[in-house]
């Protein structure tokens, strides 16, 4: 709290200073980097990068190397234009969290950290409030996706700047499906079972997905299945565990039936495994980010023509999806908070962001309304599905782990412990859905019951 008032006071001082030293010049300079200034924030209040500053951004290694290369290029451009240095550090997805925790514990580290899922709720005290910046973006780019908002807004204050989604969609082999007499990807989960059985009978190649501890593919699969049948892990109040219910049981029964019908759920698969299996022609369909499709198109050229892309099937209670969501937090120990903020805003600039989306070839999708119509989605008709699992016809799609409760420390713990995925895995392993539910309930009660 003290932080916020301090920042506002600083803003005032800066504004006065700029007004006396030529606000116009400053505004133009800021504006050219930041795109069209929308309503909501005077240009003079924009964070101004400090000459001579050195800041560092920590993010994961994007699957598409060109996307990272583009970010680095933008960092250099920003640095040259503002007489400062921006370093981009990439680590593997697994390594991002221990680095973040160590930085938080030490009170020192990168100036900007890429936050996955609900991390802003875990590390709230270490982040800087960025309400002004987000308001500016809302004005410039339109509404933000509710999942980004849920992850980045903590107790009414924005603690991270929304960045992007990594959309997941179903990749399937149109040739195998045709051989089985199926012309399009199933629209409901029950249909998936029917199709799955047909395809494996006709071709021997099953539909497959991870049911293990893949922090991408497992969450994006099993949460929507749970929600699709009406199940939820916790109540909207965020404390009452609701996993033990007939709806959850229905979802578990579905998974068990699917396994019996020939769909393969692999408890040991991590995120790369379904990619590899698909490229090796072992499976006929799987849920994944665009990396499978992109790699076929760019590198392998074996199945790119026969790969179809489809959105998530619906359950009896509706259509649900979940994607990996990334946001940028500026950390409180940064000695150049304004430079950091300015850099993040420059990444969100219309032109820059669009270039980055183009370099990502559909692997990433925008978090703001204006980014939904980016030209990248027109480069390949199959890519629009990836956009559609984020925003379908203007309406945002997708939820977050722990929905309908708001993201919190406890939903994060449940997510990182893969309680939901484990529940499905156990049910499929021995056919006993009641026991799996009871087990998950015990685990969740332990998590949500902690103060």
């Amino acid at each position, binding site marked *: 709290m003290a932080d916020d008032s301090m920042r506002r006071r600083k803003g005032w001082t800066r504004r006065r200073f700029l007004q006396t030293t030529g606000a116009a010049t400053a505004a133009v300079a800021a504006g050219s980097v930041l795109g069209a200034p929308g309503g909501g924030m005077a240009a003079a209040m924009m964070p101004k990068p400090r000459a001579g500053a050195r800041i560092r951004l920590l993010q994961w290694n994007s699957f598409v190397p060109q996307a990272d290369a583009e970010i680095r290029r933008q960092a250099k451009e920003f640095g040259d234009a503002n007489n400062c240095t921006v370093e981009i550090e990439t680590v593997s997805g697994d390594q991002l969290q221990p680095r973040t925790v160590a930085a938080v514990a030490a009170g020192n580290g990168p100036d900007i950290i890429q936050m996955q899922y609900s991390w802003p709720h875990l590390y709230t005290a270490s982040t800087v409030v960025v309400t002004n910046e987000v308001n500016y973006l809302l004005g410039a780019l339109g509404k933000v996706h509710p999942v980004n908002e849920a992850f980045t807004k903590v107790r009414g204050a924005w603690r991270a700047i929304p960045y992007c989604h990594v959309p997941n969609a179903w990749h399937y082999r149109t040739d195998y499906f045709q051989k089985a007499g199926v012309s399009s990807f199933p629209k409901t989960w029950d249909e998936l079972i029917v199709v799955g059985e047909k395809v494996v009978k006709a071709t021997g190649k099953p539909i497959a997905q991870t049911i293990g501890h893949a922090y991408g593919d497992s969450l994006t699969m099993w949460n929507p299945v749970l929600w699709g049948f009406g199940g939820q892990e916790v109540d909207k109040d965020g404390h009452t565990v609701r996993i033990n219910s007939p709806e959850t049981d229905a979802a578990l029964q579905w998974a068990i039936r699917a396994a019996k019908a020939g769909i393969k759920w692999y408890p040991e698969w*991590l995120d790369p495994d379904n990619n590899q299996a698909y490229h090796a022609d072992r499976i006929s369909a799987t849920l994944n980010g665009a990396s499978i499709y992109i790699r076929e198109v760019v590198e392998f050229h074996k199945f790119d023509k026969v790969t179809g892309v489809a959105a998530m099937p619906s359950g009896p209670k509706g259509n649900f999806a979940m994607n990996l969501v990334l946001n940028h937090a500026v950390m409180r120990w940064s000695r150049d908070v304004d430079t950091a903020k300015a850099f993040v805003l420059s990444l969100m600039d219309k032109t820059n962001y669009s270039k980055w989306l183009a370099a990502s070839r559909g692997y990433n999708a925008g978090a703001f309304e204006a980014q939904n119509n980016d030209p990248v989605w027109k480069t390949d008709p199959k890519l629009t599905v990836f956009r559609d699992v984020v925003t379908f016809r203007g309406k945002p799609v997708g939820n977050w782990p722990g929905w309908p409760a708001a993201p919190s420390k406890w939903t994060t713990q449940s997510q990182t412990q893969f309680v939901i995925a484990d529940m499905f895995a156990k049910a499929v392993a021995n056919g006993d859905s009641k026991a799996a539910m009871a087990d998950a309930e015990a685990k969740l009660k332990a998590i949500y019951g902690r103060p």
Partner: protein
Amino acid sequence: MNTATQAAQTPRVALRRPRIPFLDREAPLGYLLLAPALLLLVGFLAYPFFIGLWLSVTNAAAGEIWQYVGLANYRFEFLNDRVFLASIWNTFVYTAVTTVFKLALGLFMAVLLNQAFPFQRFVRAALLLPFIIPTVLSTLAWRWMFDPTFSVVNWVITHTGLAVRGVNWFGTPHAAMASMIIVNVWRGAPFYGISFLAGLQVIPVELYEAAKVDGATRRHQFVHITLPMLRPVLLVVLLLSTILTFADFQLPYVLTNGAPYSSSHVLATWAYAQAIQGGSLGVGAAISLVLFPVLSIVTAGVLIALRHD
């Protein structure tokens, strides 16, 4: 003794220098020599350790203020956390089974390598390789070898007729534990082997010859000569290896990380999951430290036993 005295007298002139009485007294010199090691250990080990101890009795979470909660974390873990209890069991099984195999294989290796054969040096160096290669990288290679879709191990097993179908290495709790054990034994047995080999080579051959004259069988010789003479080496290696395996993080983390459905977590990986991924530093610290008292007593016991040899 004459030789020694004579030999010692030769460089006498070179050694004669004014004494530094203080530094010649045992106690001050003793402490002084200990100082560098102790400084490093206190600064970079003991101090963080006590912070860790403190963490385990607080409700610490990253970036928040820590409040003392007594033994609440420990109580919570034992009463409410099923994965924790399973991980204790897993850690014991993992340590016990790998140790037994490493011991047996190590002894076998040592006895074998103690004989003469061509390319001996190459073989000895080759057998050290699993120990040298960074654990992260070798474990990744093993993951690829056990890969659910592409396991070359399964390919070899099925194509050489050893089994009808491949093993689902990470797909069932038992297979996952087996895979961890296999990789750990692969990595660790060479260390046992080379250590025991060293131990074997000091055993006087006359003992064996005398035993043979008395009519002892090979097995008898092994049990009554080799093993007792190896005992000191055995105890050292066993102690170190047991402790390191108990706390092993890299191998289980890279290989299975709890798969399937959190059933193959060991204490180190579960503590990591709680502290780093889940954000509960206090709980993670408690999990890490839970066996510290037990292990300390066991270690002390073994060390005392060693001293009485």
